[in-house]
């Protein structure tokens, strides 16, 4: 009669849940103050382990369940103060978290788990020196005193005191004495009400939590006091650091509801899981709607009958408003707090600084800044690389720092915030900084610049982004791995973003990542070059101006710069770069759109048209990526317009100019 129960359908949910729980464990472990662990944090770690174990057991991953059991036990003992928390233990449990991630990954892909590897880590956990365990084992079986006073309606909840006692009895020895004083005379008694209360002397090697769990369901239906006998005060005093009384300390021991969800306090969010594909479809659909609306809007403005036109216009305006709201909301679904990436980093810093023998404090801020999921997914690796780099090459050893008159503990600060239409993520360290001379030598060695090239310090710093340039003298195993700053840069640029570096020798280095808020849509400014219409990012525009050709001068007989405020900016003639026929070539007849493309540039265009939100469509879907273009979009009249990618355009223009004999590529790369 056994039912064929296909449990595999639940597996994905279990894996997802477990991975989340592991993240919770990791974050909480890293936030633990070893000397004074907060009970809530210990509890949260315990509960996360507990739910992984439960799930693993349910779905038949017995090796995961067994392994997690060891972790759970370990923290349960800490929770019950049977052993003290040690650095060694936290490290071992962190290692176990990794091991569990591995086990889950293997199980998910249906691959075998390396049993020796698992056994090794398991052994490490079991063999942890039990700091206060000897103390605990010497102690006699704890004796609890429980006072249980059910409210009179107690029986109507379907609960029964007898069943509770039966359960308690399974855990240890107990003596029960009933309080009959509230029992009314027989004739006045309502047999459906409960008049009794009980004092229970209970000897069992259990934790308070175990007893509380027994009464979990009736928590609100009774008065309940649980007190530990002889050792109570001693424990309590130790817990509270001797400052407060036992009662207070007991309160701290109660599991809080914030921790019970297996989440970090304050992290409980009203979130739902949504399949990304569904969201993408929705985003596309809304994009289509936007196009339809703008077509309709065009029709409305050209319709000949005035009465109809007014009505149509009104309804179109309404539709436009609604559509914009809908679009905003829809795009919002894709936005996630950058904390999803940030939360990986404390662990990285923790592990790396230990293996490098450095002392580092990681400061995170702006964790709640929201960013498109796709962008978020793609900045993980670059961020990890930059953090590794800061730890490996930036932050000095404690001895070096002391010698330099700095605090022994280095600081890596990670911050994210909105700036213009971008999200900026800044990685700042107070380490040794970039040595311009060393970079210069290296660049000459690698033939990236000529000995005679005169570069500003900022230009030299930016050399590290050139392909093949690696700042480390030797591959250190930390930031080595064949990934250089050039890969970080190209990853970010691919997202439509940009990277800047600023550094001062001996003071520190700051990397700033400029990232688009979303990849799906942008506020566009339409511009005309000849007969062609292009879209540029409205948010990158500083200003547009009629050109005073007397402020334009030619450099090296080839490219032009325009005197703008207190400096010179390159003039990019779009008709030249894009080979557009029939465009204005006289500077005085055109307009210069001054933009921030990581550095200031001026775009020479024929005309500036309207502004509109555009849905970015990739050219790669049916064609391929074109350098200098971010994609294409469909305008209100159904025609296609190209969207210009500013950093790409600048790079392309620089490359074109390089072939037209400018000194060197490096000289052009500057912030």
């Amino acid at each position, binding site marked *: 009669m056994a039912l064929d*129960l296909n449990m595999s359908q639940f597996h994905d949910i279990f894996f997802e849940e477990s991975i989340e729980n592991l993240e919770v464990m990791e974050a909480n472990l890293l936030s633990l103050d070893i000397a004074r662990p907060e009970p809530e944090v210990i509890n949260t770690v315990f509960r996360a382990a507990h739910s992984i174990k439960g799930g693993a057991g349910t779905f038949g991953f017995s090796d995961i369940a067994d392994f997690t059991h060891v972790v759970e036990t370990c923290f349960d003992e800490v929770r019950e103060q049977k052993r003290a928390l040690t650095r060694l233990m936290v490290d071992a449990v962190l290692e176990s978290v990794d091991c569990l991630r591995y086990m889950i990954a293997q199980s998910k892909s249906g691959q075998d788990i390396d049993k020796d590897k698992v056994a090794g880590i398991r052994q490490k956990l079991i063999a942890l020196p039990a700091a206060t365990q000897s103390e605990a084992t010497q102690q006699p079986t704890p004796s609890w005193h429980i006072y249980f006073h059910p409210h009179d309606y107690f029986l*109507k*909840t*379907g609960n029964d005191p007898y069943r509770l006692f039966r359960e308690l009895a399974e855990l240890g020895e107990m003596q029960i004495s009933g309080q009959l004083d509230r029992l009314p005379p027989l004739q006045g008694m309502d047999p*459906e009400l409960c008049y009794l209360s009980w004092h229970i002397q209970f000897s069992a090697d259990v934790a308070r939590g175990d007893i509380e769990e027994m009464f979990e369901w009736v928590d609100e239906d009774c008065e309940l006091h649980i007190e530990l006998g002889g050792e109570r005060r001693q424990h309590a005093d130790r817990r509270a650091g001797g400052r407060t009384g036992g009662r207070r300390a007991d309160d701290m021991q109660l599991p809080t509801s914030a921790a019970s969800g297996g989440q970090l306090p304050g992290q409980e969010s009203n979130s739902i899981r949504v399949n990304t594909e569904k969201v993408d479809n929705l985003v596309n659909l809304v994009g289509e709607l936007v196009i339809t609306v703008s077509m309709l809007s065009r029709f409305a403005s050209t319709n000949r009958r005035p009465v109809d036109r007014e009505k149509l216009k009104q309804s179109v305006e309404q539709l436009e408003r609604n559509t914009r709201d809908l679009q905003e909301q829809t795009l919002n679904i894709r936005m996630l707090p950058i904390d999803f990436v940030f939360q990986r980093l404390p662990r990285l810093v923790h592990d790396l600084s230990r293996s490098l023998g450095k002392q580092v404090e990681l400061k995170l801020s702006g964790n709640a800044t929201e960013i498109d999921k796709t962008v978020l997914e793609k900045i993980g690796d670059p961020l990890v690389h930059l953090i590794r780099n800061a730890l490996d090459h930036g932050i000095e050893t404690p001895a070096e720092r002391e010698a330099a008159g700095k605090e022994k503990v280095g600081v890596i600060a990670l911050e994210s915030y909105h700036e213009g239409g971008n999200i900026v993520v800044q990685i700042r360290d107070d380490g040794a900084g970039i040595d311009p001379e060393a970079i210069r030598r290296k660049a000459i060695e690698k033939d990236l610049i000529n000995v005679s090239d005169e570069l500003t310090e900022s230009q030299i710093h930016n050399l590290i982004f050139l392909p093949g340039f690696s700042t480390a003298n030797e591959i250190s195993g930390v930031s080595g791995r064949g990934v250089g700053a050039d890969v970080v840069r190209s990853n970010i640029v691919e997202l439509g973003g940009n990277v800047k570096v600023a550094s001062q020798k001996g003071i520190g280095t700051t990397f700033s990542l400029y990232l688009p808020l979303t990849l799906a849509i942008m506020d566009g400014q339409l511009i005309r070059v000849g007969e062609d219409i292009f879209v540029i990012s409205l948010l990158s525009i500083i200003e547009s101006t009629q050109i005073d050709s007397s402020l334009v001068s030619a450099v090296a007989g080839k490219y032009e710069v325009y005197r703008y405020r207190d400096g010179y900016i390159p003039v990019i003639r779009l008709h030249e770069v894009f080979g557009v026929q029939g465009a204005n070539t006289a500077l005085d007849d055109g307009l210069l759109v001054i933009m921030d493309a990581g550095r200031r540039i001026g775009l020479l265009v024929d005309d500036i048209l309207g502004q509109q939100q555009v849905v970015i469509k990739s050219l790669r879907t049916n064609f391929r990526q074109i350098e200098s273009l971010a994609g294409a979009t469909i305008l209100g009249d159904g025609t296609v317009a190209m969207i210009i990618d500013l950093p790409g355009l600048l790079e392309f223009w620089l490359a074109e100019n390089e072939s037209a004999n400018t000194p060197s590529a490096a000289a052009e790369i500057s912030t």
Partner: protein
Amino acid sequence: MTETPKPTRILLVDDSASMREMVSFTLKAAHYEVHESMDGVDALAFAQDNDVALVVTDINMPNMDGITLIKELRQLSNYRFTPILTLTTESADDKKQQGKAAGATGWIVKPFDPDTLLKTIRRVL
């Protein structure tokens, strides 16, 4: 008389077929008799005509949700003291309390392994 004792009957209410099967499978394996209902309406109809030793119900269900079902059951004279457990998720603290307020005996936290399920059920039988 050699008739075996009548097995304890449990009324299981959940709109999710997979959940129902999983719980039911576990309970049957432990020799309980299980009657499955897909929603509150169905469950209430069954409860009115039959005696059960325990009701295990999901909270979110179409037609009649678990909270309403519990309230309705408690109105029936032979269900005033019957243990009723809700199936709830660990984080849904308010659901547990809502269930309790409606008259539930306790709750079973999803997800659970068969052992935990049986252990919890034995607490009230």
